[in-house]
């Protein structure tokens, strides 16, 4: 199985702003990939290059074995796109927009259309301007998911959806995954990413900084340890990967890089452990760390 998306060394600048600076991204067919990064990292720019809306300055971009710029129209028959900020034609009803986009894409599944409209509790008779933000988003989601396509490009698709609709969205994407569709999901909702994505890619300043499964990413980060020891700790402070060490008599509390967990535990057991609590990093911590490095870098 090949790659649905293959990007190597993609560069794109707008005037003096370097939006993408050598971005790499490979998404195999059938994978649901989370696409994460702080605001302004270049996620939407990447999606727009994939859609052939922006011309890449440099780098190689392949989409469904085609060139997204040259073969835009024929490739678009096989993909559907949900933007993060949906703008609808004021005098067209939601139902009309769904049908129009579906037909322009090459047809849509009427049963699935009806099912999705029910599931998202969307009134298709309202005119574009009367929809709320969340409902405009639903129109685009229904239009995209009701089409029979190979690839879904979702750019923060659930911004503005309520938690119930968010759950319905996750369910719908699970079904897409079961059908073998490839999904690129840009999102800031970490629970959504955790529930849906096989792998995630994190980008920062227009470059990919991390790619892998969530388990792999977790492995790259720190575990928090709180322990009650038999005596005062010794040697912990000397370990390079131990951070934020606090010692209070026989109690210790510290963070340790996952790769040095063995060493740290050996130090503890050499003193004798009375109780031990270890906490894997939460997703939030994981991403905050990746995102925050941006400002550290900028500070340098």
């Amino acid at each position: 199985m090949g790659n649905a998306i293959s990007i190597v060394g993609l560069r794109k600048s707008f005037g003096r702003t370097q939006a993408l600076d050598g971005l790499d991204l490979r998404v195999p067919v059938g994978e649901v990939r989370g696409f994460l990064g702080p605001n302004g990292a270049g996620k939407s720019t990447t999606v727009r290059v994939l859609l052939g809306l922006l011309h890449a300055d440099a780098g190689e971009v392949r989409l469904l074995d085609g060139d997204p710029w040259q073969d835009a129209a024929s490739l678009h028959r096989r993909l559907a796109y949900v933007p993060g900020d949906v703008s609808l034609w004021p005098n067209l009803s939601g139902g009309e927009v769904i049908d129009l986009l579906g037909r322009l894409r090459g047809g849509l599944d009427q049963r699935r259309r009806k099912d999705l409209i029910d599931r998202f509790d969307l009134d298709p008779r309202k005119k574009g301007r009367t929809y709320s933000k969340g409902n405009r988003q639903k129109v685009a989601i229904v239009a995209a998911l009701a089409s029979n396509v190979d690839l879904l490009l979702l750019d923060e698709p659930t911004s503005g959806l309520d938690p119930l609709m968010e759950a319905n969205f996750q369910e719908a994407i699970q079904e897409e995954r079961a059908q073998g569709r490839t999904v690129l999901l840009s999102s800031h909702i970490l629970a959504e990413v955790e529930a849906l994505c096989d792998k995630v890619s994190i980008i920062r300043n227009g470059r990919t900084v991390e790619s892998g499964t969530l388990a792999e990413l977790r492995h790259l980060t720190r575990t928090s340890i709180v322990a009650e020891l038999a005596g005062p700790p010794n040697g912990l402070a000397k370990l390079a990967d131990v951070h934020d060490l606090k010692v209070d008599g026989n109690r210790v509390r510290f963070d340790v890089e996952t790769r040095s967990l063995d060493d740290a535990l050996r130090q503890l057991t050499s003193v004798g452990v009375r109780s031990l609590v270890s906490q894997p990093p939460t997703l939030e911590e994981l991403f905050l760390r990746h995102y925050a490095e941006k400002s550290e870098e900028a500070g340098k």
Partner: protein
Amino acid sequence: MTATLSGIDKPVAARAHSLVGTWHLTRLALRRDRVILPIWIVLLSIVPASTVSTYAQFYPTAASRASLAAGAAANPSFALLYGPALDLGTAGGFIAWRMGGLLALLIGLMTVFTVTRHTRAEEDSGRAELLASTVVGRYAALTSAVALSAGASLLIGVIQVVTLIGAKLPAAGALAFGAGIALAGLVFTAVAAVAVQLAGYSRTANGIGTAVVGVAFLLRGAGDSTSDAHWLSWLSPLGWPQQLRPFAGERWWVLVLPVAATLVIGAVGYALLPRRDFGVGLIPPRPGPAEAAPSLRSPFALAWRLQRGPLLGWVIGLAVGGAVFGSIASGITGLVGQTEQTKEIFERLGGTDAIVDAFLSTMVGLFAMLASLYGIQATLRMRTEETAVRLEPLLATRVGRLRWAGSHLVFAFLGTALLVLVGGVLLGLTNGLRAGDVGASVGHLLPAVLVQVPAAWVVIGLSTLIFGLLPKFTGASWAVGALALLISLFGPVVNAPQAVLDVSPFQHPPKLPGQEFTATPLVWLLVVAAAALAAGLAGWRRRDVG
């Protein structure tokens, strides 16, 4: 003491609070309108006084003035278009006739657009919501919009009075003239204040407002052009400025009508405001179909949905214009008078020996210029779709860029041709009805219509070029259109050098009917239009979207 004071203050304070922030909003509105409003004010206020010298130039003698009056009286179309000619023997009377009705109409449009722009349009955009959440009273937005619109109207009136007196016209007449126009502005400000409460969207509010202006124009026109229904024009706010009889024995009591109408209609607007929700009009929005019609399946079908409204409006506008000017055409000889000087000026405007043919030719040329403005509007719709990010989901389907652009450009190019045709055919039709030979008259004008179309296409081609190559400057298309119009309309009058006149594409088509037909300039116009279109589309294919 304190208790008494606060007791007195309470209702006053409550009322004042509903206006809190009006001054800030007015300043914001002034800043946002710092270009558009001065343009309106200058255009509407200096035109009357600048016509004084034209009158002296065109109608120097008592005989020529009598011939003008006879011509105007002989043709009811003039009364329909301009209003009753009360006294054409003085410059003031002439201005009140030729400018009074027209300026009242324009100031009506200005106020409708201004009030809507600062009320419903702001609500539609979501900006007003942000402001409404700050310390801003319920009536502040409406009041600031009304203040701005009324202030501009009054300023226009004052400048008119001052400049007319400066042009040595009688002070009483100047005052009546300026007051009539300014008060028409106030009446339509009040009308707009009601329209923005009724309509669901700013576009609808503008539609209701302009429809009222249009009905007022028709009422006045019908009342003034028929002998047994004069009372109709008394119903129209556009009739009042002329019922004031500026420069023709002023009837001051008529001022009561616009003042009363403003207060009553304005009060209705303020009374309706608290009865509607923010962002929603009193007219409930109608739901649309749950499923699209089978025909809505191509970019062209979508472009038709988006473009048909404006196109229909323009078709009606040019049809009415063609019909009215066609019915005037045969009377034009009487109006222009017998002096050599006036004939000469008219010929310089683009005509030939036959004065009626010259008039018809000028009118068709004017229609082509107006139609090119529609063409620009239709072309710029592409940029609107692009910046409103409605284009991206479309281009994410298998619709290619050229196919999408083509679906809109069909309206720009063919729609413009259709408009010139509609204007020209109705011009020929009503002219033929008065002259007694419809077929010959229409047939006479068709070639004139066809030769004007390539000139309009050059403007649209350039507009496409800007869209394709300089998308951030698509507004410059209006400058291109305006430049072509100004050169062709005023260039010949001010004896501009040929090199300047040649810049406008509308100078190049042969002036049919009347002149010899020559194909060469038309071929060149088509080549320029096609080259600009091709370059624009090539740029559009290569550039980034957004």
